[in-house]
């Protein structure tokens, strides 16, 4: 972050936004700043941790939640041979379009919250079949990401990609489709089986009827999404013990006013920032804050990023796409290849393609498949010109210094003593395997290349 922005943050008086949630009072140093930047953004650029630590915790959080700039900084994305990306039209370029924002945006939390909402209202282009509709949905999520949940829920309900994905468009009075009515309760607002019945699913689906669309003859894509009163069931519905001739807005209003919604909302939002649940009393306070603020998102996010458990609690495995963006940021690389589109699927998270409507399972990011894919990322990251050439690169054969160089290659992530010792131990064994003169010349560069891959495969790097 440039000095000017930091100065502005310092002058800005922190608003009293944390309500009755406890506030972290411990040390706020590089380690805490590193965690904040990985969980509320896409990781630090070299030197960021020290700068953010110097702001102090509250200013650091506000610099993320109230960014001074939304600019994209750095060269525009392109693919091989300098071709500009075509996010609406070319396979994988939708992924590159967003990954570029993750890498370059000055408003890191805005991008991260957009990813949160993409997971929350998980919509997959597998079912939508239109990169344009997916990107439009993404823009809506970005625009509303820190406003209010009712606004977000309303926008998502009438969002064309969502309407295609969960069959809301075309659900009519004659035969309402239950898909959206079910998932909006189960996954978006209440939690599975929490405070609603199968009958509520049916009644909501009646209230939500009336949406339809036509098809663009030129592109073959769905088009002109609109509400047609003729297709709407205007009869009396009974939802959560309320009766009335409910329409789609009533359906959403009943949902966000459901007594079980605030607790669900708070627990789900918190789960994106911390793997351990909020203490019950704090969850209750947060739910009260949420309701009393008019169901605003930003004050809760700020309170959560200032909560003691955020800093004192356990580590969190970085979502795969967050790690990819963060690795690029740390080595100062920008989007210059379409490899990330398919690499993202190997590591288990392709934006715009969540596995299903429940989003990604953040409790099981790492398995034998995805661990190896994360390891393999480094080969692409350092290709072609960043890899050290054996015999040409000057690498001093000192295991400890080589380990430090490899850590510094990634902007100096904080690794534990045992991890650094294990890396140095590897370097020693690799160097010791040289017997001939040519081997002693070449192995240091090979070893340094391997060390770079091992640094970002370490458990301390995977979880922050």
């Amino acid at each position, binding site marked *: 972050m440039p000095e000017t922005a930091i100065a502005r943050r310092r002058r800005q008086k922190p608003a009293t936004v944390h309500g009755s949630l406890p506030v972290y009072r411990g040390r706020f140093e590089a380690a805490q700043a590193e965690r904040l930047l990985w969980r509320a953004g896409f990781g630090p650029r070299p030197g960021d941790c020290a700068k953010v630590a110097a702001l102090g915790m509250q200013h650091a959080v506000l610099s993320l939640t109230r960014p001074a700039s939304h600019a994209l900084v750095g060269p525009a994305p392109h693919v091989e041979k300098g071709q500009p990306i075509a996010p609406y039209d070319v396979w994988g370029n939708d992924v590159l379009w967003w990954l570029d924002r993750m890498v370059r945006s000055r408003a890191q939390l805005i991008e991260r919250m957009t990813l949160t909402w993409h997971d929350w209202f998980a919509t997959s282009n597998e079912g939508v079949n239109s990169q344009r509709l997916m990107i439009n949905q993404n823009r809506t999520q970005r625009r509303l990401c820190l406003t209010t949940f009712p606004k977000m829920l309303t926008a998502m309900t009438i969002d064309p990609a969502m309407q295609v994905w969960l069959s809301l468009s075309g659900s009519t009075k004659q035969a309402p489709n239950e898909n959206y009515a079910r998932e909006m309760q189960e996954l978006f607002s209440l939690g599975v089986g929490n405070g609603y019945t199968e009958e509520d699913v049916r009644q909501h689906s009646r209230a939500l009827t009336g949406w339809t669309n036509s098809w663009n003859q030129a592109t073959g894509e769905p088009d002109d999404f609109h509400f047609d009163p003729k297709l709407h069931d205007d009869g009396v519905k009974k939802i959560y013990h309320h009766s009335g001739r409910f329409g789609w807005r009533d359906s959403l209003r009943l949902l966000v006013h459901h007594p079980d919604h605030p607790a669900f909302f708070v627990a789900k939002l918190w789960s994106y920032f911390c*793997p351990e649940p909020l203490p019950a009393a704090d969850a209750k306070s947060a739910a009260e804050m949420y309701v009393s603020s008019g169901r605003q998102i930003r004050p809760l996010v700020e309170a959560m990023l200032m909560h003691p458990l955020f800093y004192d609690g356990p580590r969190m495995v970085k979502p795969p796409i967050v790690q990819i963006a963060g690795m690029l940021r740390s080595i100062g690389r920008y989007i210059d290849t379409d490899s990330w589109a398919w690499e993202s699927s*190997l590591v*288990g998270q392709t934006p715009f393609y969540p596995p299903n409507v429940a989003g990604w399972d953040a409790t099981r990011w790492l398995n034998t498949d995805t661990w190896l894919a994360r390891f393999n990322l480094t080969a692409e990251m350092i290709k072609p010109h960043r890899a050290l050439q054996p015999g040409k690169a000057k690498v001093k054969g000192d295991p400890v210094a080589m380990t430090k160089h490899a850590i510094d290659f990634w902007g100096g992530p904080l690794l534990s003593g045992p991890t650094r010792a294990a890396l140095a131990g590897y370097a020693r064994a690799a160097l010791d395997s040289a017997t001939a003169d040519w081997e002693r010349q070449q192995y240091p560069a090979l070893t340094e290349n391997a060390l770079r891959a091992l640094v970002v495969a370490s458990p301390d790097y995977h979880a922050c």
Partner: protein
Amino acid sequence: MPIRSCSCRDFTRSELLRRGVAQAGAGLPAIEPGMPTPAGTGLSRRGFLLRSGGLALSVYGAGRLLEPHAFEAGVAAAAQSPAAAGRVLVNVYLQGGIDSMSVLYPAGDPLYSQYRTTLALAAGAGPVFTEDPRLFWHPLAAPLAQLHNEGKVSVMPTIGYTDPNQSHFTSRHYWEVGATQAELMTGWLGRYLDLNGTADNPLQGLCLDDSLSPALATAKVPVATIDLPSTYSVWTQGVWGPPETVMYDAFDSLGKIGVGSRDAGMIQSGQAALMTSTLRRQLLPFQPADGASAPPLPALYPSVSDEFPARMAAVAQLLGAGLPINCVSVSTQSVFDTHENQVPAFEPGLQEAADTLLAFQRDLEARGLDDRVLTLVWSEFGRRPQQNASSGTDHGAAGCAFLIGKHAAGTMIGEWPGLASGLDPLGNLVETADFRVLYASLLEQWLGQEAAPIIPGAASMARAAVVK
């Protein structure tokens, strides 16, 4: 020759075992009583590396190998135990809740055409289901009809559970954990492996997917996930020779740091690192050597763009290679959540699934593995008999499942209840067989494990005859 074959190199059992023994070190028992110790046992590690023609074996230098390679010894030992020639259960999940009334359609049910105004198929469009002439196989399910006619398919036309849940995730979870309990965190096959598996053989529970199948989630013993064996390879940039070889030992040392920490995130990373390291060694024989072409598969798998057929072909290859595998989990990539415009979404998925399951059975037969393998095919629920206005079907309750194999009983479990009286107040099919009874019966009749410690409430459940 299938267009989409898996490019694994096929290995005979003895070749594989020779490699296992060579990698695991001396002192292991002979492979099978009376069988000579294969050539290659006791090769020096460096020699082995040379013989393998460029395959980057993770072994280098003898002294410090044994400890981090304990898994390798475990696999080699397991491959030589009678269990390696034991029974295998392949768990195939049809994603999204398949419309059982389109797989086996009740054209002989007088109400069928009223419920399925546009989706109904004519009687005789597909083969009749010989055990109940009211039902017909979808024309694209003819491969299953063929296996059924050979006595190799037990059909469950209406399987489910009481108080059905219509959430994909909840109902799937129930099927995966083997109980209608939301809080259970281990899979039913995972609990079986916890009681019957070993601490050092991740292949005992193998998931071919990009994430672990929850049905295989264990509490104690390791299980593994791979995409396809032929793609399980390490990529590095500017790393080769001995610095690469010893790098694989660093997988283990980093993994141990993670596992030894008190932090759940670090532990997850550490466990994945250790398993990755082990699995990489186990699958080295399946990495094609430079320039080697894939051998033909013994059965014709469909050539489609998703990975389900390739993964099923890989299961047969891995079993054929004698790897110590006990439970396998694979899921279709086709999603059968057909809320709208059902036919064009449903038919390619059904065709691919049915063609693949037939090919897999033929593959097992050609490899002489059909005595050892049963395949269970299931989905989280069926769909509502009354179609919706989008020419699709919404989530229902009871649906279909199939048990395929030479030793499947081959007779129907449960029955078709009829649309006149077989629906619950919400208009969904009521189950005529319970999935927990199916699991309990499979555990006892196929896997030789008493069901009570695995399936909650099994002691008071009936059993179905699932095996012949």
